[in-house]
């Protein structure tokens, strides 16, 4: 067994072991910590749970730090609007965990039904009022999304719908862009690279990786408020992300 194989074994024992510990401790502490946030900030249950999930993401970033080089680029914290729609490319199960690096914690994820099948996360996702886009009608999803945005939070979509198995960005679905135009909230594109090296679809073993998350410039929607504007918004945002991902990947390969 060579050093590289030993490192991979150590990484998997370390990351999965500590993630399990973080999850158990998180579940046990949530009632107490949640009550503290309720008293301290007056947040309702979904807001409290979303903050706890964000802290869990920060825990993830700490756990992986010995094996994963992670960097956040792009907009500074102050330039990222609290009330917006994030759209991000999707490469790995662990993409969502890196959202702990975003500046705000009030983020409602729009997810397919399979993540709700993970019993240890299900209750948290339900309490956080996550949008279940697969088994709900789009009308219901847009109503719930609008409600989140009216309360000042953000909604995060994976507009590709599922993880890319080729690493290339796939077609975008329109839900996020309909919601942006209905709500008037800006779109903030996010580009992530490297999580497909960490854990691509169809593999359970983690590998060391360099992960980059870039927050692209905010896209205001006022110029898209016309018939079919969501289609143009979808195309423009995707074009921005494709261009940025190409540059990020080119930079990444130059750095190797």
């Amino acid at each position, binding site marked *: 067994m060579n050093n590289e194989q030993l490192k991979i074994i150590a990484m998997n024992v370390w990351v999965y072991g500590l993630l399990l510990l973080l999850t158990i401790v998180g579940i046990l502490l949530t009632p107490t910590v949640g009550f503290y946030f309720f008293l301290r900030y007056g947040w309702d249950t979904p807001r409290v749970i979303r903050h706890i999930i964000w802290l869990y993401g920060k825990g993830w970033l700490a756990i992986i730090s010995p094996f994963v080089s992670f960097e956040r680029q792009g907009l500074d914290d102050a330039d990222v609007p609290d009330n917006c729609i994030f759209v991000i490319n999707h490469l790995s199960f662990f993409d969502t965990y890196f959202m702990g690096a975003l500046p705000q914690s009030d983020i409602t994820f729009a997810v397919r039904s399979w993540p709700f099948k993970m019993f240890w996360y299900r209750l948290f996702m339900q309490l956080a009022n996550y949008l279940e886009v697969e088994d709900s*009608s*789009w009308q219901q999803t847009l109503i719930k999304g609008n409600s989140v945005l009216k309360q000042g939070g953000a909604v995060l979509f994976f507009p590709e*719908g599922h993880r890319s198995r080729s690493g290339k960005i*796939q*077609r*975008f*679905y*329109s*839900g996020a862009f*309909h919601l942006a135009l209905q709500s008037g909230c800006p779109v903030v594109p996010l580009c992530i690279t490297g999580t497909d090296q960490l854990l691509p679809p169809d593999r359970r073993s983690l590998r060391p990786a360099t992960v980059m998350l870039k927050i692209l410039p905010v896209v205001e929607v006022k110029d898209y408020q016309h*018939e*079919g504007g969501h*289609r143009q918004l979808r195309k423009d945002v995707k074009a921005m992300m494709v261009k940025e991902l190409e540059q990020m990947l080119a930079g990444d390969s130059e750095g190797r």
Partner: protein
Amino acid sequence: MTEQQMITIINDALVEEFELDADEMQPELSIYDDLGLDSLDTVDMVIVLEGAFKFKIREEAEIKEIRTLGDIHEFVKRKLAAEVN
């Protein structure tokens, strides 16, 4: 316009709008299960077809019955024939 030209216009418009694989545009394919369209995409599909054929179909009840690519071909064929008559 021949039927084949009409089918080509429909397929090309859908391929461009929904980033589909042009080689896989077979009439028997379900627009939902095989082509991966969702309910919001069908709204866009109507806009795309209206743009391609310069007709108005968004109020047509038949749109809701469309399940396959072939259904779209037949629907547009009937619509164009009705406009000529």
